[in-house]
């Protein structure tokens, strides 16, 4: 564990700052997203499995937000977000502690719009259990309280270190994360490393958790064109796409063609030149392309 990480998990002040950060994230900004789902369950959805799934989905939303902070902030904010993300992995643990206060929490939540006291109670109940959970996680990371030292964040650090070693050995970064995952697995096996993942699937999960570029490749369909071509773009789908395109006005079709480089169009570095050529500016292009995409997406859903 390097000095910065010790500072985050072991320093008393740093722990408080991290907890305050998590409180803002979980209780101030995203509380409603959680409670509106767990306190108004659909019929037959009140099981602990449904709660666990909801908490997991909520935690993933938080992780995505933190990933975006990590991507955009290289300073202390990014460092805190990185430490926070490691504490959010255990969604099952979070669901368990929330389950222990679910009834009073939801009772207070149902009345919180009428009574301020209930709003405070909601915050208090939720944060009491979550903060204890996060503190326990931090203790585990530091090896305090009999922590096993095999926490996911520690595994993540070992994987990052091992990845750097492998890249140094091969003399260039991995362009393909699948190959990195395979090499990591073989290296873990060769060195008989304990407390490390034993399947490429688990290793890939860690790589996606620690690498924004890799995680983005799962969300950005434009990076998966080969899979789309092979498995999704059937003739039926492509015919439907053409039919939907024909329903668009010519100016919306033109905006799509320019925006996505679908036709051979001249490229302009200056907006004034673009405007002189097409008769409209970049903002109009953006709006028209967005409108066209929305209309097409709606048409394809039908």
């Amino acid at each position, binding site marked *: 564990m390097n000095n910065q990480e010790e500072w985050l998990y072991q320093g008393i002040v740093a722990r408080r700052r991290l907890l305050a950060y998590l409180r803002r994230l979980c209780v101030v900004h995203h509380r409603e997203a959680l409670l509106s789902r767990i306190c108004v369950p659909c019929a037959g959805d009140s099981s602990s499995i449904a709660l666990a799934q909801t908490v997991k989905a909520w935690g993933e939303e938080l992780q995505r937000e933190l990933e975006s902070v990590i991507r955009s902030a290289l300073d202390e904010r990014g460092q805190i977000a990185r430490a926070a993300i490691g504490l959010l992995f255990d969604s099952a643990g979070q669901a368990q502690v929330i389950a222990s206060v679910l009834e009073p929490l939801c009772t207070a939540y149902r009345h919180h719009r009428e009574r301020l006291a209930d709003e405070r109670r909601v915050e208090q109940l939720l944060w009491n259990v979550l903060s204890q959970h996060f503190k326990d996680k931090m203790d585990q990371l530091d090896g305090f309280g009999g922590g096993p030292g095999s926490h996911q964040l520690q595994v993540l650090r070992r994987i990052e270190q091992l990845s750097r070693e492998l890249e140094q050995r091969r003399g260039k970064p991995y362009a393909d994360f*699948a190959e990195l*995952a395979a090499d990591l697995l073989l290296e873990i096996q060769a060195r008989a490393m304990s407390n490390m993942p034993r399947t490429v699937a688990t290793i*890939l999960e860690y790589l996606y958790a620690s690498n924004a570029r890799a995680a983005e490749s799962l969300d950005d*369909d434009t990076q998966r064109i080969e899979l789309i071509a092979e*498995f*999704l773009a059937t003739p039926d789908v492509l015919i439907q796409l*053409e039919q939907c395109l024909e329903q668009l006005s010519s100016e919306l079709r033109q905006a799509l063609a320019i925006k996505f*480089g*679908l036709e051979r169009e001249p490229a302009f570095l200056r907006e004034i030149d673009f405007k002189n050529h097409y008769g409209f500016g970049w903002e109009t292009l953006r709006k028209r392309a967005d409108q066209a995409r929305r209309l097409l*997406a709606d048409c394809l859903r039908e």
Partner: protein
Amino acid sequence: MNGNKQLKLLAALLAIQEDALAPTAAADACDEVHWQEALTRKSALRGNARKALLHSPQTRRQFYFMADVTRAEAYARWKQAGIETALRYRAAASPTVEPLKIESNPHFTLILFPLDDEGKTWNLYLKLSAAFRPLASAGIRLVDDRGEVWLAGQPDADGELSSDWQLEGSPLERLLQHQLQIQPG
């Protein structure tokens, strides 16, 4: 609109799709088994599975993850079998247009056939070794270090895969600037 443009547009449309507009149940273990069979080309993707993928970003995310796992597993098998994936070629540019055979890797050979005298159109032919064939049956692709795919698909029973050159420029020029690598498909 040609096929590539259609694909580009379809991908862009999928990328802005919202889960909230198209709620779908998360994929279960059965879906994943079915995906795995499709991804390893043991069976075709069923219509309802395709529909679920088309309409839910969350389901596609799981599918893309499974695709990466399948490829990583293939890499692991190749590496355990000692298969080197890079195809090294360094030669001076030749003024004559003639077939070029690259045999620097014991597990596969690449041959470039010119289809005209000017070297404007080419055919690519890849032949896998007998040892590599069973490990590559689920599909492979030949990629340069810019990430451009030269050839992709399932080799036939003789371990052969061929296609016309579809990228811009000449493959000979690219070979002088870029390295090639075989990847799981």
